[in-house]
């Protein structure tokens, strides 16, 4: 098991194969790669196919809603089909982040991590699944009674905004743990940027009151500024996670110990003391 592995080959595919077989953090990297891939697929679907982003105006009359649903029917339904699949991979991102939180030097780190995971997974349930169901249902039968079409239309965009509680708590948990963490898995400044996300989630609430203007669900403040902040934050978060995985001192179980014999900076003797359960 401690046989030293071959050196990293140069070919692109060969490199991936090497990491798959020998990288001690292979499971973490698999989870990390779900972030750029799944978020990009989702973002592209949201912006080009499903018309969730940027959202159409809330002031549409029933006839206009029907017209909207009729003209984009196929796009919406195919887009949400793709979304439904890529959504599952967000769990990986949440699991990875939750797990990294558990590695922090914070009181009750494990509970914080679990809380984060549960909060964020719940968010995808209402925000992405419910809105996907209702809009694709509405687009499936545009000949439905316009009153019900409008109902589904409202449910879609309001439940899409209705995730704010989940993400609010998710980023609040993140803020608190990063700012109290002593191990510096994540840089402190990133903890503050989580406050941006937290605050913008808070501000979406105006979309539930107004139908028109900057605070409606398609408004400058409630949608555009929030989304720009969110996407900016999302990019920072992927980068920060990348470095966090590099930095994190994984507990040395059998798997990682067997593999880290090859990685130059690993220290097997420390690893051994950290893994009493490995046999």
């Amino acid at each position: 098991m401690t046989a030293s592995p071959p050196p990293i080959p140069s070919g692109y595919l060969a490199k991936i194969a090497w990491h798959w077989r020998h990288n001690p953090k292979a499971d973490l990297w698999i989870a990390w790669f779900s972030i750029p891939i799944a978020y990009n697929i989702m973002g592209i679907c949201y912006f080009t196919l499903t018309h969730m982003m940027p959202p159409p105006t809330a002031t549409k009359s029933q006839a206009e809603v029907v017209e909207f649903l009729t003209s984009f029917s196929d796009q919406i339904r195919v887009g949400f089909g793709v979304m439904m699949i890529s959504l599952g991979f967000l769990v990986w991102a949440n699991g990875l982040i939750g797990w990294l939180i558990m590695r922090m030097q914070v009181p009750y780190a494990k509970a914080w991590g679990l809380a984060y995971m549960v909060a964020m997974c719940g968010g995808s349930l209402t925000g992405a699944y419910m809105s996907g169901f209702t809009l694709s249902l509405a687009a499936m039968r545009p000949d439905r009674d316009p009153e019900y079409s409008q109902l589904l239309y409202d449910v879609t965009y309001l439940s899409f905004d209705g995730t704010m509680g989940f993400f609010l708590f998710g980023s609040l948990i993140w803020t608190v743990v990063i700012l109290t963490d002593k191990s510096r898995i994540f840089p402190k400044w990133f903890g503050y940027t989580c406050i941006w996300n937290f605050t913008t989630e808070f501000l979406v609430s105006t979309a539930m009151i107004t139908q028109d203007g900057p605070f409606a669900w398609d408004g400058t403040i409630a949608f555009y500024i929030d989304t720009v902040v969110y996407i900016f934050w999302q990019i920072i978060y992927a980068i920060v996670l990348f470095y966090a995985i590099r930095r994190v001192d994984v507990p040395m179980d059998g798997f990682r110990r067997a593999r880290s014999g090859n990685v130059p900076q690993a220290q097997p003797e420390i690893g051994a003391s950290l893994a009493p359960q490995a046999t």
Partner: protein
Amino acid sequence: MASKSPDSPLEMSEAEAARIERHDENPLDGIWIFIVGDLFIFGSYFVTYALWRHWYSEEFIASQQVLSQGFGIFNTLVLLASSWFVAAAIRAQRAGDYDAAGRLTLLTMGWGLTFVVSKLTEWVIKIREGYTFTSDMFFQFYYFMTGVHILHVLFGMLALLRLYVEVKDPVCRNNDTAESCAAFWHMVDLLWLVIFALMYLMR
């Protein structure tokens, strides 16, 4: 702790060991990135406000008359004073006069509390008069901006509390953390200066 092991080559006093265990070298570093970013996010809100104000200027002007400038002036002076006090607290901390620093921080928190109370009173008066979030576009902006700002004030109060704890704790106190906390509070102040101009004074 390696320091507590008897064969450790380093002789460490009890206090030093405690310090290493508890002290986190400036847990608030990097706050500048947050502050500058926040300035720009608020800047985008301000520009949105200006656009809508330009498009619906009659309505905005009419509603603006309803706000009492007295409250605005009072709140501005309170926050300016709080900024002054917390800046003085930092000077005291740098000079090593921790008692004075603690007192000044407490006074700053008093100013902050005054601001919160006065802001809430103003809100209650306006709501009693029938001007709510849904009244018109101006009041949407008014409640939104002041609401976001008061959220920052509350976070700022937490920062001040951290500053106070910092000052009172002889083991962990350090100037960097204190400056970070104070910087957050100054940001709350300077955002209010612009909100005051946009909401109460603009014509």
